[in-house]
């Protein structure tokens, strides 16, 4: 039986009803949900994207709003009302200057290798800094760079975007200006052969 046939058998509920459903599902979850996850719980033939768009519009300017976080959505309280929620405020671990800078470098330069972070800060990344950012759920390991040594790269997570209220990393403050002024370019030091990323690790032994 193909999809067309199924759709004709079970008619999707009207849009207003679909919007209610998305509202209920999103409300119940503390974590952002991707449209596909929402869709998996909706009746067949639901137009999730459209329902989300309607919901987003409905909640614009309310005390809680629908936020897009990466490719997912979540209800979040309006930032201007944060002062009412002292009771819910969670104790934030005070991040060291090194940790904050490392986080910012990963966010603005992602995917960034450890060597690139060190090149920008001019010091080695201390033990435990990346570890801590990963434990906070703000940084994760991305793809390996296809350069000699195949170093791992680090990127920011959906949790990072959620925490800082960003829809995408493109919404980072000042990112466009930084890019335009060339400050996000990976400019190698003069005299280094291009693509000299090799940091000589034991990766090769491990997988070959």
């Amino acid at each position, binding site marked *: 039986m193909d999809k067309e046939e199924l759709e004709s058998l079970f008619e999707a509920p009207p849009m207003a009803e679909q919007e209610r459903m998305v509202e209920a599902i999103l409300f119940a979850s*503390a974590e952002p949900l991707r449209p596909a996850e929402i869709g998996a719980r909706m009746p067949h033939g639901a137009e999730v994207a459209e329902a989300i768009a309607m919901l987003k519009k409905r909640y614009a300017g309310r005390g809680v709003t629908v936020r897009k976080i990466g490719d997912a959505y979540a209800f979040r309280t309006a930032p201007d009302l944060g002062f009412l929620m002292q009771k*819910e*405020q969670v104790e934030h671990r005070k991040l060291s200057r090194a940790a904050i800078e490392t986080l910012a470098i990963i966010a603005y330069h992602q995917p960034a290798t450890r060597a690139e972070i060190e090149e920008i800060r001019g010091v080695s990344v201390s033990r435990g800094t990346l570890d801590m950012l990963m434990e906070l759920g703000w940084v994760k390991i991305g793809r390996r760079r296809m350069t000699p040594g195949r170093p791992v790269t680090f990127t920011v997570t959906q949790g990072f975007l959620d925490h800082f209220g960003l829809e995408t990393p493109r919404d980072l403050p000042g990112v466009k200006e930084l890019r335009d002024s060339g400050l996000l370019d990976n400019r190698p030091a003069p005299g280094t052969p291009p693509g000299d990323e090799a940091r000589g690790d034991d990766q090769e032994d491990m997988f070959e």
Partner: protein
Amino acid sequence: MPDDFIGELHEQERAARLAAEALVVDVAGYEGPLDLLLTLSRTQKVDLRQISVLALAEQYLLFVEEAKRLRIELAADYLVMAAWLAFLKSRLLLPPEPGDEGPSGEELAAHLAFQLERLEAMRRSAARLMARDQLGKDFFARGEVEVVTRKRSVRYSATLLDLMQAYAMVKTRDDFEPLAFKRGAIYTMEQALERMKGLIGHAMEWGMLEQFLPEAWRLDPKKRRSATAATFAAALELVKEGKLEIRQADTFDPIELRKRVTG
């Protein structure tokens, strides 16, 4: 009022000296040489794009000298940077020698200025990032996650970090193993005996000892030696039990084995 005038001069000198020393004494407060350079560059009071790298290099070298005078130990990377800046300074001041390879002083200086500008830009961006509204501080997620159901299913969760930490744990454990000989390349007589018992049933004809070695132990010389010794010892044991016959035509000739035919 000459007295006052002299007093004022002393005062100025003292302030200048204190300022210079403060910079030196504060060395622990810098996050590496680039951070220190960035701080020094602020004294030039110009846009980082117009900075005099030569003046900056001199300031830095002065700083290092001052640290030496005050017998403050500087970390190695500060000294590496000092050596590099001294080199850069000479490149900037002296005309390039004919046939000189490598980047020019200007190129190196431009890159250093770029690095400083980039570091400062990242600092500013980090501050702006942290100044944003934050989840759990300025805006909030649903406080009461609603779960309404009778259907239960267990979902095991593990993150990449869990996985890496588990692996790290296994690997670290090795580092702290009590002293013991690594027996990776040793084939025990018990193992050989076990294997031989399975094989001799089929050994109706004389066969060379080597044929009885396990496949995986035949190539690596170390493993082969260990397996040969163990198999030979096992063969002797089996001869003693009356299950095997063993022969060698002459010294250093191949050792041959076969099942002992009884009756």
